[in-house]
């Protein structure tokens, strides 16, 4: 099972002939992901390391039965690429591209959502189900197969926590980076819901940061709708208000979006919050009873 990506994933990579696109498409394929097609308009008929390239997503789907798209095209063309994937019948779209205008994503989100499509990202590292499939830029070698789900707004911080878990002998079912932009296709709740339904996941680690109120909403969701335990981490206690901390969405506006408020909201709902990545891994180890 796992979530978002698994053995049934048939991936089409949009922007496959770009430097990043070809590098990661090849890596994902080498990991064992079924990378069945690439799309770059005007380059149909070529291939990238044995992956056939098509001019349109529709063409790729017709020939290869692709069901998942990874978007690597530059920011100003990315919204178009997502619409194209969705209109071609793709059910899961993972957008790695960084720097997409927020208004573009606002329209994309409201178009995609009622169609029941799973949209992950943008500005995210992708999704990895260890031993099954890797779609995106997550370095698979630091993770291991197991039963802990990991969902995060940040890339390297997720790797850090995953690494600490792996070191304690705790593997993961799926790692999902939802991205650090103001408008993301999948919220914490969307991913928590999938983990709750996944028989291969027994505990979830949620890695949040300052900005917005998704962590607060997730706290309510966890308390009311989840049977599986959740361990959380929040980054940005020392971040000053009004300053964007790297991620476009990581900003405290007025009194909203602070790390303290998020921590309190989670703890008030019985979710344990680690104070640093090492402690998070330890809390997970305590909960699953693994050797530490």
């Amino acid at each position, binding site marked *: 099972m796992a979530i978002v990506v698994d053995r049934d994933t048939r991936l089409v990579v949009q922007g496959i002939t770009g430097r990043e696109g070809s590098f990661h498409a090849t890596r994902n394929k080498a990991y064992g992901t079924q990378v069945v097609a690439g799309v770059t308009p005007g380059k149909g008929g070529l291939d990238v390391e044995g992956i056939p390239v098509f001019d349109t997503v529709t063409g790729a789907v017709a020939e290869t039965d692709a069901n998942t798209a990874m978007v690597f095209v530059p920011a*100003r063309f990315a919204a178009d690429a997502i619409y194209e994937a969705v209109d071609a019948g793709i059910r899961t779209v993972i957008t790695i591209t960084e*720097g*997409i*205008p*927020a*208004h*573009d994503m*606002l*329209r994309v*989100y*409201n*178009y995609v*959502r009622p169609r029941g499509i799973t949209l992950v990202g943008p500005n995210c590292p992708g999704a990895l189900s260890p031993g099954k499939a890797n779609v995106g*830029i*997550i*370095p698979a*070698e*630091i993770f291991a197969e197991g039963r802990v789900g990991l969902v995060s*707004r*940040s*890339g*390297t*911080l*997720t*790797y*850090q926590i995953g*690494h600490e878990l792996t070191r304690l002998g705790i593997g993961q079912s799926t790692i999902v980076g939802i991205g*650090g932009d*103001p*408008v993301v296709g999948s919220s914490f709740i969307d991913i928590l819901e999938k983990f709750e339904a996944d028989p291969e996941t027994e505990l979830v680690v949620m*890695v949040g*940061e*300052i*900005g*917005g*109120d*998704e962590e607060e*909403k997730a706290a309510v969701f966890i308390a009311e709708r989840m049977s599986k335990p959740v361990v959380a*981490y929040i*980054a*940005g*206690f*020392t*971040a*000053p208000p009004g*300053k*964007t*901390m*790297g*991620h*476009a*969405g*990581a900003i405290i506006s*007025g*009194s909203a979006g602070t*790390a303290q408020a998020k921590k309190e909201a989670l703890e008030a709902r019985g979710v344990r919050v680690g*104070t*640093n*990545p*090492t402690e998070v891994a330890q809390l997970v180890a305590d909960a699953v009873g693994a050797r530490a």
Partner: protein
Amino acid sequence: MDLYEYQGKELFRRHGIPVSAGRLATTPEEARSAADSLGSEVVVKAQVLTGGRGKAGGIKLADSPQEAEHHAREILGMDIRGHVVKKVWIEEASEIAKEYYLSLTFDRGAKKPLFMFTTQGGVDIEEVADKTPEALAKLHVDPLAGLQPYHARRLLFAAGIEEPGEQKQIAAIVEKLYAAFVAEDAMLCEINPLIVEPHGRVKALDSKFTVDDNALYRHPDVAEMRDLDAYPAEERAAREKGVTYVKLDGEVGILGNGAGLVMSTLDVIAQAGGRPANFCDLGGGGDAQGVVDALEVITPDPQVRSILFNVFGGITRCDEVAQGILDALGRMEIAQPIVVRLDGTNADEGRQILADASPPNLHVEETMLSAARRAVELAGH
């Protein structure tokens, strides 16, 4: 990107939202001639990218050009919440019968633009939302369907606007504000206060306008409005080098890869009893040039007493990062002690490279927590 009041009003004007006539001045003399050309009574308003100007004495009424010059002399150079006033906006004074509040924001949770409107204008909107939430009319707009006339009607009736002249003018402003919000890729458009003059005319007396940085490529005119002087010198230098940097107040300089990990590093420094001097994200790369650029941004800060390098190797390999650090140290003099913590892909090889070279003043730690403690110690805590 936040715009000054006068820039926001320029965008309002372009989109047909009524504002007062005004002129920008950077010297008391310019303020005087601006007041002279505007004729009547004027208001001298400090242009800073922060709130609380009024309370700080940054907004003053002037009866004559002489008085405008006098006020401008006082206001220019004033420090308002850490922002030095370098420009004043001289504007025709308005008579105010009523003060309303109208804003359009990006509701991240609902993923829709959100209008907020209340007749309790001129005050802090968070306070209105807290104390009298029933007085605040809120309404989402579906970005695919766009604004419909009923949106304005609902806001007006919910807020209790009954005067037909006001209804008509505010409905038009709601429509134009939405058009401006979409056309300029705004993250926030706020009019506080939206005033009604004694004879019934409605206009925007202030503006707060924030434009999405990611969309500036399609708004070259707005991009040009960025005032580099408004940012601390270090942040300006960082921007030129393409390094993501935010100046903070402590003694431990921080360098890391990835926004989340860097934020986490700042927190761990605080937990270890220190104070971070900055947020600095190297991004994906860790090559010598990237490391040099980042160190050049961090080290001129006189408050920095130690530097913590916290890198998690993913696609970027730690041996490459270690080599980058050595190359950087070979190319520049660093006075402060540096603590390096490498983890993830090829971390052992990276640590070995640093151990073999063992440059003076460089300390290698194995974990994020021990590295944080060491950096705090070295900063003299």
